[in-house]
């Protein structure tokens, strides 16, 4: 217990210092809200419009969630193929590396034209594509990068390739999967958010922030920003929790 407290207090201290100096700065310098609102102002704005916040967050969150699910599924399936068939790996992995710096979100207007702009589809699709790459790359690596001794062991036990996949490669890949998910989950929220800037239904967090800023309602804009932060954080924390349950051995120094 004492050990846990000891680990927690440095970040808490720094958070308190940060928020405290922010509040103090606004107060002392008399900074106008349109420039930089005080934490207290954001706080009150947030709680006065909670139902709106929640609705917008739910909308964007659903888009993000759908994109995350499908992108992850697609990434997993293709990774299984990539492990089995070298050609899939040799084609897709360099593609993933090459496209790493490409702003995939820029595809949204094209998808908006091809698919119905008033529906969620183009946004979910672009989120899906964005999520696919980290999942594919990491899971493929996890399936392939098995300790050679363990492969020898399986061979000595006359295990079929499908058995090796089931009993060795897949469990080995689980920590890699969660590494990818920890990147992909917050990323899906951002992607869903930004995809709202290309037109289409305006109920999401992205649209709300933009319109609030355009109407100089900065207190409201910041409140929506806080809602986005919470949504992103929630996605991440859920992944952490699932990881702790599904892969408790992650991060342990490997057995010899």
């Amino acid at each position, binding site marked *: 217990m004492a050990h846990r407290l000891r680990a927690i207090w440095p970040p808490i201290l720094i958070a308190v210092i940060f928020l405290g100096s922010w509040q103090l700065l606004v107060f002392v310098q008399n900074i106008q809200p349109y420039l930089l609102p005080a934490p207290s102002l954001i706080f009150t704005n947030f709680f006065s419009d909670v139902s709106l916040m929640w609705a917008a967050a739910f909308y964007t969150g659903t888009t993000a969630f759908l994109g995350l699910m499908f992108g992850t599924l697609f990434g997993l399936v293709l990774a299984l193929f990539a492990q089995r068939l070298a050609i899939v790996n040799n084609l897709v992995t360099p593609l993933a590396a090459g496209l790493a710096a490409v702003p995939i979100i820029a595809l949204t207007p094209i998808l908006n034209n091809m698919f119905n702009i008033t529906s969620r589809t183009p946004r979910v699709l672009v989120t899906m594509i964005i999520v696919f790459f980290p999942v594919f790359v990491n899971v493929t690596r996890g399936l392939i990068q098995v*300790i050679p*001794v*363990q492969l*020898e*062991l399986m*061979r*000595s*036990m*006359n*295990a079929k390739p499908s*058995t090796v996949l089931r*009993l*060795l490669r897949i*469990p080995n890949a*689980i920590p890699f999967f969660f590494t990818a998910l920890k990147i992909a989950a917050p990323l899906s929220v951002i992607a869903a958010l930004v995809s709202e800037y290309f037109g289409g239904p305006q109920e999401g967090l992205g649209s709300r922030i933009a319109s609030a800023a355009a109407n100089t309602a900065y207190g409201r804009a910041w409140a929506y920003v806080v809602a986005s932060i919470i949504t992103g954080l929630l996605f991440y924390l859920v992944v952490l929790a699932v990881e702790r349950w599904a*892969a408790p*051995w992650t991060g*342990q*120094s*490997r*057995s*010899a």
Partner: protein
Amino acid sequence: MSDTSVNVTGIWKIFNEGLPNEVTALQDIDLTVETGEFISLIGPSGCGKSTLLRVIADLTGPTRGQATVAGMPAAQARKDQRYGIAFQQAALFDWRSVRRNVELPLELQGWSKDRRRTRAMELLEMVQLADFAEHRPWELSGGMQQRVAIARSLAVDPPLLLMDEPFGALDEMTRERMQNELLRIREETGKSIIFVTHSIPEAVYLSDRVVVMSPRPGRITDIISVNLGSRTEDTREAEGFFNAVTAVREALRGRGPGSSEARSRIGEI
């Protein structure tokens, strides 16, 4: 008693044959291991001892020659699970408990859940780790992990055990304890063991015969018989032990009974 002899005839293993970086890891190896024998393979790095073990285990194929285990080709022996193997790394699966790690070969053989569990607990009793059955591999020390690996290698009760420097990563005291463990297990089960090591005292202490190998190209230079009878606490300090260790050391230096030096002394060449 089932036939557990290992027969290696004319085995060659050449890596990168025909290429500029060609390496002859094994040259014309002939070796017979009798039922119930404990054989050590010893030699400096590159002498091919681990490669020979892997050829016998059918983890790699020979370039020429053949190996048989219990009268059948090595590949068949592997399919029929006629041997268990332990490596220098315990290679336990982090995502399984200790018990389920020991159950792994049994799962692959299609044993039922209850039967597997019973057998795994039996084996863990044998290596005195029954209390740790539900622990995770990383919670155990190196020596304990290695004991689990040995228990796993005994799971299907194979007549032959192959071991590739299993105690290499352990400290001296743990090593000696593990050596005694291994001998005790062998007493109880009567298995043949082929043991790769580069510790001379270990080879002498454990084996009936010590096979000395040398590198470039990998070949057998001497086979030294060790006749020390039952091993006790005093064996390591007995004169016979020192003599055997000396004999092996001399053989490693190229002055063993099979060497040209020895043979010229005897007048053979």
